């Protein structure tokens, strides 16, 4: 059973909707700047969404506070992806979202108040758990029934897309809104700093002199439908999701294996699932975080699969920052845009290939003939590796 993509929505450091994101990618306009909105953190380069919580709350006319920023970003992207669709008893509708921080922004404020013996606002803690983040988004769109959240660090929303596709393939749902959301928090900024992999300059994915990642925030959602759903909704088909695979690297809690075992397995099986050969892949949206470890391991894995015929590939993280649990969905939307417009996106900040692997990413925005199939990689802590394949319908 084919799984069609008929809706996309996104909010990131490079735009508040799909069109703005596409424009920024085309114009090579990065959204990574010094932090302005997140309190307590200065002089840190990150991909902030340039809207405050209050602005987001007003924009979507929200009540029933408190909201975590993760929910607010999720509502923005999910609303765009859902578009003018309406609920009907004829269709089994569900939602799978993903987040790694959930309501950690509010939890940080609550916990600081507790530790500093201020009068703590306990209502803030009600947004802590990841599931409540998803419920707030679903509630906004009035989706009920199967509502689920995955949390597998940086591969989370790629897994949400995969689970949604599987639920449709196994005929458990007719349509499902899938994606993920994460906001910038002190927790993650300090966390990646403590691991010494936060670059205090602009990140340089796949460059020999890369020195770590810049975090970002954002959300993206995609509407997946089966054929009987499309007969009712009459939605236009953007493309299909045709392949997916999740594999454990089983090497280290945070580091990727030097031979790229998990990444290789994820890519290989996803391509197989799509029923195509590796030479049919037109473009790879790589995970490419800009850390020494990831980019070396991912390059090795790409060579394992494609040998000397590596298709055009790029990491878009130097635009958005690494948006953690949202990254898979944000990059899935970019993959869909690549297919819809027959384009490949640039890998900015690249000057010198990695000595060992010598791979040169796509550095210019470029129209090419027939972008038929796009591979998108998302790799996370715990060795959680997921690859997705999107195919022109």
């Amino acid at each position, binding site marked *: 059973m084919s799984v069609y993509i008929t809706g996309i929505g996104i909010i990131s450091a490079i735009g508040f909707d799909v069109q703005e994101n596409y424009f920024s990618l085309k114009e090579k306009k990065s959204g990574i700047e010094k932090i302005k909105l997140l309190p307590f953190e200065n002089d840190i380069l990150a991909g902030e969404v340039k809207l405050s919580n209050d602005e987001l709350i007003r924009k979507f006319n929200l009540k029933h506070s408190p909201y975590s920023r993760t929910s607010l970003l999720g509502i923005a992207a999910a609303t765009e992806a859902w578009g003018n669709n309406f609920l009907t008893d004829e269709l089994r509708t569900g939602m799978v979202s993903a987040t790694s921080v959930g309501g950690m922004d509010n939890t940080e404020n609550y916990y600081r108040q507790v530790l500093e013996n201020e009068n703590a606002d306990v209502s803030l803690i009600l947004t802590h758990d990841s599931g409540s983040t998803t*419920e707030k988004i679903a509630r906004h769109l009035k989706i009920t029934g199967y509502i689920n959240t995955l*949390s597998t660090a940086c591969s989370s929303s790629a897994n949400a897309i995969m689970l949604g596709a599987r639920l449709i393939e196994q005929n458990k749902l007719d349509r499902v809104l899938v994606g993920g959301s994460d906001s910038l928090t*002190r927790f993650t900024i300090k966390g990646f700093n403590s691991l010494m992999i936060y670059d205090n300059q602009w990140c340089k994915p796949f460059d020999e002199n890369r020195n770590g990642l810049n975090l970002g925030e954002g959300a993206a959602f995609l509407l997946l439908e089966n054929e009987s759903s499309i007969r009712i909704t009459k939605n236009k088909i953007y493309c299909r999701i045709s392949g997916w695979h999740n594999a454990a690297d089983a090497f280290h809690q945070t580091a990727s294996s030097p031979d790229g075992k998990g990444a290789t397995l994820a890519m290989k099986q996803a391509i197989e699932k799509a029923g195509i050969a590796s030479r049919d892949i037109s473009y790879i949206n790589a995970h490419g975080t800009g850390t020494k470890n990831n980019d070396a391991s991912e390059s090795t894995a790409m060579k394992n699969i494609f040998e000397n015929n590596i298709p055009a590939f790029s990491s878009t993280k130097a635009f958005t920052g690494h948006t953690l649990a949202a990254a898979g969905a944000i990059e899935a939307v970019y993959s869909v845009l690549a297919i819809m417009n027959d384009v490949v996106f640039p890998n900015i900040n690249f000057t010198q290939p990695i000595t060992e692997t010598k791979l040169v990413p796509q550095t210019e925005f470029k129209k090419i003939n027939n972008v038929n199939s796009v591979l998108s990689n998302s790799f996370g802590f715990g060795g*959680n590796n997921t690859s997705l394949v999107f195919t022109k319908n």
Partner: protein
Amino acid sequence: MYYITAASTISHQPTFRNKSFSKNISTLAAGSVLIRPDYKELISSDMLRRMSEIIRMSISCAMDCFHQAEIKQPDAIVVGTGLGCLFDTEKFLASIITIKQGLIPPTSFIQSTHNTIAGQISLLLGNHNYNMTHTQNTISFEHAVLDACLNLDEGKENVLVGGVDEFIRPLNNIANQLGYKNIQFTSGSSFFVLSKMKNDKCKTQIRSAITFTFIESFTDCLTRYLGEIKLDKKEIDLVLFSFSDEDAKVSIEKYFSETVLLNYQNYSGTYFANSAFAVHLAIDILEAGDFKMNGSPTELVKVSRILICNNLNPKNLGLTIVESIEA
């Protein structure tokens, strides 16, 4: 059908490697503590040192499951956890707030992500298969079970699935501040192997599971579900349930007026994934074939099919049916 070829639980009850525990457990006393196995017998001591309780419990149960099911590598590892690795999350949160200058140790950050649990199991086994973590507050475990069943439907043979959450002290303060009274927070971990094939020792199976979010009528959901799986409520011998508001309790008692009901929270204590405890309790009761628990007023009843009805969060509902294979 999804055969249950292994079940293992660490909880505040003597559940670990203790078959027929359902015959001997009583409702939790105030101030009860987690009954830990000797972790050193199960996990090497240098690994143990770095592990929080949630990881220790999970790995111990997972290893026990592989032993019972006589498998070395599961084809998928699926975990449901409502709040994830709370101990390390709280520890890192406290560090970033209190350490104003200088380096913050990264270990608790590394171990704070929800998927540390499933990830550590894969790492320990060198397992490269499907590895997933579901976190949908009180119905995280049911979502993990649904994913495990999906994996079996897709052709996998053996899937490890677990539900686990850990208690940390700040939970008590938060509950007090939120005005919740008389909640006994506990830790617990239950893991199972679900299989396509049954082995000689296998006596129980999961018939099906379902989740509902933003429920309006508890009984409508039940009626719809039982209709979908073509089961009459009279065919259910025992209902294990949890609830957090009295109205729900009244409506479930009314709905199952002719069935024996048991509030499993009185045995497991409260944690987000405690419906996994209830599933193991159900398996243990089914293997015994009849049921009469300490402190429960009912007479001995024959049991071959049990419904676990998880309404711990009033807006969510998780339903799981566990039955004897002969049923």
